[in-house]
């Protein structure tokens, strides 16, 4: 730990800065602790959109092809929901659209960084160590906000410079850079507020991610509905929506930045006010007492695992169900959009009848659920590793609980949890889609099947996580890299015309497209066999190996 830095540097600050004393030292401490991760996300997020611009420029070289792309985007609600609105048929505007996730990711990184250096430090007791030195009450919050605000600005500046560098208009580039920075600023401020509310960092992250998720969903719902409809105003309830509504390269609306600035000022002030009203270590929300005795049911590793997993299960299930409902609500309108193009309609009717376009839309978006559920599968399975690393596996394994019994108690959630979440997504999507189209009885089972058929691919990721946990515990986090690779192959592989050899590596490639497509059992059975082999290898490895507590 590097707590020595602020102590010495705080001592070198002669002027009494009141509640901000020691901020400079803390800034250096944060930069020291995050010296790898901070430059990494700033650089990656700045470079990605620039690459996107270059890529789009190569693939769509003529104004006509850009217009065609633009037409496809605005006619495809799934794309609008996933990435955001497209405002113009120019390279800049389409790059901004394509890089739409950057707004959310910057917001996420800023949010988590703020919580990491505020509430998480307090929970770990590091804040206390600092509080005893010449560090003012507001200094830790001020320091991390300074760092994150500056990082977001640097990111925006790099992005703007890069965009100008590849030949895009300067005004739009500056607007895009500012918009990305604004998204980061706003959620840094959200992080500052939620960090004051609870006494646990996990709960603070949950609140922050929930806020971000809500902002994303509001934007997604509003953007698919289109700016003309009444639902379109939903985007304006979302800070992520504001960042995109600044419309870089499409008649920039500078006044929207005023909204963002106001949001940041109000939330930061609220955070400072909350901070002044609470003790170090405590939250504004009161810490609740638990039961003095355990419920009679809390008597097995599985019961413990249920206690540890139930929040995660509820969160993922609810999140996927809401996503399903959003996609289900817009799926029917895809048909109407195709109505404008007689050719397209003709083609689709010949392939699969009137519903073909909606079906294609629904089956095409299923991969989003599959990827999300796979993330959940990894997270739940790697809870094993978290328990082991956090020394919480040890007291359980020192009782009359066998290795296999303990490992399977968590693995159950890695395997069944994603199934529950996928089912919830399918049910919600099928129900809403059926209600909109007026035929729940027909659509619900079809959509549900489309969601559940993803499960074998999802479980492969749980299997990979389990195998790594059992055989190479120190490398368990590589599971996430596997998911990232598979996601890249599933989403961009076909666009990049990668060979089938490569595409076949991703389990998601082998899932039949439902509703509408044909089901063949063979690939599904193979995926299940692979999963079973990975899980068995992981369990066997874990039975034989030492407990590895620290990295």
């Amino acid at each position: 730990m590097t707590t020595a830095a602020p102590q010495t540097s705080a001592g070198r600050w002669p002027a009494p800065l009141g509640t901000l004393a020691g901020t400079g030292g803390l800034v250096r401490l944060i930069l020291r602790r995050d010296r790898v991760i901070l430059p990494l996300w700033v650089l990656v997020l700045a470079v990605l959109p620039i690459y996107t611009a270059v890529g789009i420029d190569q693939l769509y070289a003529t104004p006509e092809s850009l217009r065609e792309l633009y037409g496809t985007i605005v006619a495809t609600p799934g794309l609008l929901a996933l990435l955001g609105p497209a405002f113009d048929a120019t390279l800049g505007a389409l790059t901004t659209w394509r890089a739409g996730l950057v707004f959310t990711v910057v917001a996420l990184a800023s949010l988590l960084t703020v919580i990491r250096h505020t509430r998480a430090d307090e929970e770990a007791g590091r804040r206390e160590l600092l509080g005893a030195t010449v560090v003012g009450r507001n200094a830790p919050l001020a320091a991390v906000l300074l760092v994150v605000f500056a990082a977001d600005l640097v990111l925006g500046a790099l992005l703007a410079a890069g965009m100008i560098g590849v030949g895009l208009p300067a005004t739009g580039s500056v607007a895009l850079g500012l918009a990305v920075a604004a998204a980061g600023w706003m959620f840094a401020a959200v992080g500052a507020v939620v960090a004051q509310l609870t006494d646990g960092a996990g709960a603070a992250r949950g609140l922050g991610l929930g806020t971000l998720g809500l902002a994303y969903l509001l934007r997604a719902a509003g953007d698919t509905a289109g700016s003309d409809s009444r639902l379109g105003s939903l985007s304006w309830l979302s800070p992520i929506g504001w960042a995109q509504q600044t419309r870089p390269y499409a008649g920039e609306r500078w006044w929207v930045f005023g909204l963002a600035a106001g949001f940041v000022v109000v939330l930061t002030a609220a955070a400072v006010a909350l901070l002044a009203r609470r003790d170090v270590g405590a939250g504004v929300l009161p810490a609740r007492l638990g039961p003095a005795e355990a419920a009679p049911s809390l008597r097995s590793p599985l019961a413990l695992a249920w206690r540890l997993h139930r929040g995660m299960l509820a969160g993922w299930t609810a999140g996927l169900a809401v996503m399903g409902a959003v996609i289900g609500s817009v799926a029917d309108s895809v048909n109407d959009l195709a109505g404008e193009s007689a050719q397209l309609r003709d083609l689709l009717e010949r392939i699969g009848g009137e519903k073909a376009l909606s079906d294609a839309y629904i089956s095409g978006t299923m991969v989003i659920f599959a990827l999300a559920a796979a993330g959940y599968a990894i997270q739940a399975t790697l809870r094993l590793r978290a328990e082991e690393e956090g020394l919480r596996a040890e007291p359980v394994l020192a009782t009359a609980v066998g290795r296999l019994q303990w490992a399977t108690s968590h693995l159950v959630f890695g395997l069944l949890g994603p199934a529950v979440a996928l089912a919830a997504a399918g049910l919600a999507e099928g129900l809403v889609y059926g209600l909109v189209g007026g035929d729940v009885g027909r659509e619900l089972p079809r959509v549900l099947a489309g969601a559940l058929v993803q499960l074998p691919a999802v479980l492969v990721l749980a299997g990979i996580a389990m195998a790594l946990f059992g055989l190479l515990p120190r490398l368990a986090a590589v599971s996430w890299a596997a998911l990232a690779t598979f996601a890249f192959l599933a989403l961009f592989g076909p666009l990049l015309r990668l060979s089938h050899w490569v595409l076949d590596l991703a389990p998601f490639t082998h899932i039949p497209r439902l509703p509408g497509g044909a089901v063949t059992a063979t690939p599904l059975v193979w995926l299940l066999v692979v999963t079973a082999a990975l899980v068995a290898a992981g369990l066997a490895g874990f039975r034989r190996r030492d407990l590895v507590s620290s990295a």
Partner: protein
Amino acid sequence: MSTAISISGLVKTFGPTRALDGLDLEVRTGEVHGFLGPNGAGKTTTLRILLGLLRSDAGRAELLGGDPWRDAVALHRRLAYVPGDVTLWPSLSGGEVIDLLGRLRGGLDPKRRVELLERFDLDPRKKARSYSKGNRQKVALIAALASDVELLLLDEPTAGLDPLMEAAFREVVADERHSGRTVLLSSHILAEVEALCDRVSIIRAGRIVESGTLAELRHLTRTSIQAELASPPDGLAALPGVHDLQVDGTRVRLQVDTAQLDEVLRHLSAAGVRGLVSQPPTLEELFLRHYQAEPAGVAR
């Protein structure tokens, strides 16, 4: 069965580090056995092997007549373990953790649980997140002590406890001995081991370097004394148990075996004591004196 734990030639390596280097240890049934050693000497590694959490590379370990790796689950019904670094699930209350661990072990004596909660002054309703290190330690201790088991494995159990709770802990362990349980108590606090243990094994760099009853090891415990006297002392050098004597006019520095302390003090007070500083030796000093080749290094 007269031995609860019997280990011979135990070896465990972590990469290039040899954590255990041919360790031999014997704990008899019904005794409180002190397992003394500095940090990093291999105490926790030994306990983890005894719990089947780690697999030894060589050597033999037997625990309650079984193999700690192969028979882990069956053996764990008959023992309780308190880790040195207690981490708990933040969202569970202390009471829930105590009950859970007790039940996983095969049962908890509810009367004893109430008694221990009172004795250690622990609020079981608080979430583990808000417990201090000492309180987390208490949770693990109560869960272990309230279980009906034959053997207790305690890894530096008082590291986070305040003196009052340390005293409570000593009382409880004394009770355990009377009720016939075997205790293996790892510690680096010599006074604690002296107060509680029948026999002691001292581990250094992965080997047992000394093992025996406290009386047998008594020669290890010396008190160092600095005194400012009214007149120069006489006859100190001739007393048994006095080591490293330095006399500088009326100033005296010496080390004395604890058994001879009384006699030395009588000699000093005969010369008139103006000032007195007495220090029990730290474990580290003991190690240094006992194992360093150069005795001069100790007198420093």
